[in-house]
């Protein structure tokens, strides 16, 4: 059993259309590296040099990982990670 990762519509081009994929790792950062081996390019859409991309929300089970430890957040088999693009904008 691995870690279930739910992929939003806009990123399913990296997963052959799959709504959820599985990965392994002991931290969120390791999980994303593992996913990138199977789904090349996905990691770049989630993280940049500074960590998690600002307009991507990542949740471990039902908690926003920004309120946990970001990419250092520990993950384990049986967890569910959900990725949602932030809904944002405005007159600017």
């Amino acid at each position, binding site marked *: 059993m691995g870690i279930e990762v739910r992929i939003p519509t806009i990123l399913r081009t990296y997963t052959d259309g799959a709504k959820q994929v599985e990965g392994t790792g002991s931290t969120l950062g390791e999980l994303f590296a593992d996913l990138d081996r199977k789904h090349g390019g996905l990691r770049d859409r989630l993280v940049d040099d500074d960590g998690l991309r600002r*307009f991507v929300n990542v949740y471990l089970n039902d908690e926003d990982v920004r309120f946990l430890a970001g990419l250092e957040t520990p993950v384990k088999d049986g967890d569910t990670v959900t990725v949602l693009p932030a809904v*944002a904008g405005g007159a600017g």
Partner: protein
Amino acid sequence: MLTITHELHDKIVAHARRDHPDEACGVLAGRAGGDRPERFIAMTNAERSPTFYRFDSGEQFRVWREMEDRDEEPVVIYHSHTATEAYPSRTDISYASEPGAHYVLVSTRDADTAEFRSYRIVDGTVAEEPVTVVE
């Protein structure tokens, strides 16, 4: 084309008026694949700003999960501009992340009339579409 009921249309405008001069934002959920908005969900603008909006991340998670459980999708994503026209800004275009959604913009810059317009925003390209209001 966006087809929307009077009731949902008026709820969006009322929300935009209520939060003016800050931007208001929210979602209309509808049956997955149906393209008809049915359920009004006002969202918290976590930025509480007259020039920017962002859904509160925890609230977004709960609402998105609820839609999935009900076999719904975000048919409309709406927000208001409070001092400018109801046209997507560069910020709106760069953060648009639901290619299947109708992006509704309401302008509350005029106290008497509300501009209510709808767009598709896909891969950085904006296409305005007609809005049909039905009973």
